[in-house]
């Protein structure tokens, strides 16, 4: 009997964004999965060739709606490398605070979506309820819920006063208490375990060979966290990358759960050590020239920015390699041999961010 081909996506209840997979099935088991992407391409990289390099920071922020701040941070730090300037320490610390806040909200959003994929509606609501409190802090400190708009070439646009810092710390402590309770449910509830333990196995060697990034590779026992390069303030903070050994969907969930707790800790450290002083250095009159490559860690993994400039006010070439793109090959590998009913959960555990991926 010949194999059946079942189309998965581009519109599917577990997918917030369109990605298509052709699943070749032998009975209920996946033999092969063929991904196809390109449904939400917007041509944002080409805009870099037309816009002023300082304005482009705002376009870079709009690459994705979840990791928005980290995109603008990566773009700005890449341009700062080209210009030979460095953001002041206070700006570096505040960038770290906002990057970690956006990591927490992204992981909480993912936890909610994952719970929804298992059919655990009340856990989904609870995750998003906690996420809302984080988004409120983001709005209070930057003015926007999704698009922060605080990063610019040479530093940041908005400062935090001592009062706000104190208030944010207090509120984060309260949110962390609520979050710990949520994490306990994820760790102990049988529904979560039944759907994730032993599902979508990816061994350490395969993850390494296929070039997985972020929580996917860290859940397979390989320590690879771009934050260890020490960009922004990460070099001065005390932390270790989070690693799990199992390599299944549960391990990927556990990595994200522990990363949220770690992010709370990193923010507290940053706010404790927040240096005083300037928040930006002027980039006026400077023009980028040469090539630069910048890597940083998004909630979903490592993202690379390549820029090339020839002394004009706009870049000659801008290229982004996003984590979802790197994680598609491991995903296809994980899907081989899995049950059809587990496919949505496996697809979700790489945390696909398709609008990042297609820019």
């Amino acid at each position, binding site marked *: 009997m010949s194999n059946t081909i079942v189309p998965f996506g581009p519109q599917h209840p577990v997918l917030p964004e369109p990605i298509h997979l052709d699943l070749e099935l032998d009975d209920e088991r996946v033999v092969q999965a063929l991904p196809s992407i390109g449904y939400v391409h917007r041509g944002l990289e080409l805009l870099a060739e037309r*816009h002023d390099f300082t*304005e482009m920071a*705002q*376009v870079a922020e709009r690459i994705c709606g979840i990791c928005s701040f980290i995109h603008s941070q990566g773009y700005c730090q890449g341009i700062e490398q080209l210009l030979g300037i460095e953001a002041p320490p206070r700006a570096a610390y505040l960038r770290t605070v906002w990057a970690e806040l956006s990591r927490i909200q992204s992981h909480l959003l993912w936890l909610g979506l994952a719970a929804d994929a298992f059919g655990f509606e*009340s*856990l989904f609501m*609870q995750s998003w*309820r906690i996420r*809302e409190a984080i988004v409120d802090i983001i*709005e*209070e*400190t*930057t*003015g*926007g819920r999704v*698009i922060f*708009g605080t990063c610019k070439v040479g530093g940041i*646009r*908005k400062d935090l006063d001592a009062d706000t810092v104190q208030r944010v710390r207090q509120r984060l402590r309260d949110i962390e208490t609520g979050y710990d*309770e949520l994490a*306990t*449910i994820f760790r*102990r*509830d*049988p529904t979560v375990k039944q759907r994730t333990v032993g599902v979508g196995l990816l061994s350490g060697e395969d993850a390494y060979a296929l070039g997985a990034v972020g929580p996917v590779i860290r859940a397979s026992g390989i320590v690879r966290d771009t934050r260890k390069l020490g960009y922004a303030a990460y070099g001065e903070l005390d932390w270790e990358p989070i690693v799990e050994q199992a390599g299944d969907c549960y391990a990927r969930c556990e990595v994200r759960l522990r990363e949220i707790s770690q992010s709370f800790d990193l923010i507290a450290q940053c706010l404790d050590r927040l240096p005083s002083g300037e928040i930006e250095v002027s980039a006026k009159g400077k023009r980028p020239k040469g090539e630069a490559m910048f890597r940083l860690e998004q909630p979903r993994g490592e993202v690379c920015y390549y820029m090339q400039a020839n002394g004009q006010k706009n870049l000659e070439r801008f290229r982004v390699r996003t984590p979802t793109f790197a994680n598609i090959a491991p995903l296809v590998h994980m899907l081989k041999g899995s049950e059809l009913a587990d496919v949505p959960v496996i697809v979700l555990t790489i945390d696909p961010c398709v609008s990042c991926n297609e820019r």
Partner: protein
Amino acid sequence: MSWFPISTLVTRNAMQRPATRLYPFEQRTPYARTRGHVAFAIDNCDFCTVCAVKCPTRAIVASKKDRTWAIDHSLCILCENCIEGCREGCITLSDKPWPPMLAKDVLGFRQAFESPAV
């Protein structure tokens, strides 16, 4: 007792008031920094058109000759470039979100050519 944590949480949530608001009737007070909409006061404007040049979406159209200034709130992305660029301080950020627009509309301002006699 693996189901115990979620049952405690669900029971507590059932006893409490809902976490959500009845939106149109009950509205949240915006934060001081909330980007609501771009507000404009024409009194001090000298129509230098810096704001219109800096606007990435061309939501602002200003004319020195006609002494007019107009904004399309459906195009505005609240990037605050115009506010940073305004020398006279007549463009400000309001924390009230612009109400939903039922039709495309451009909000225009025009300054009188002759100031009224005092």
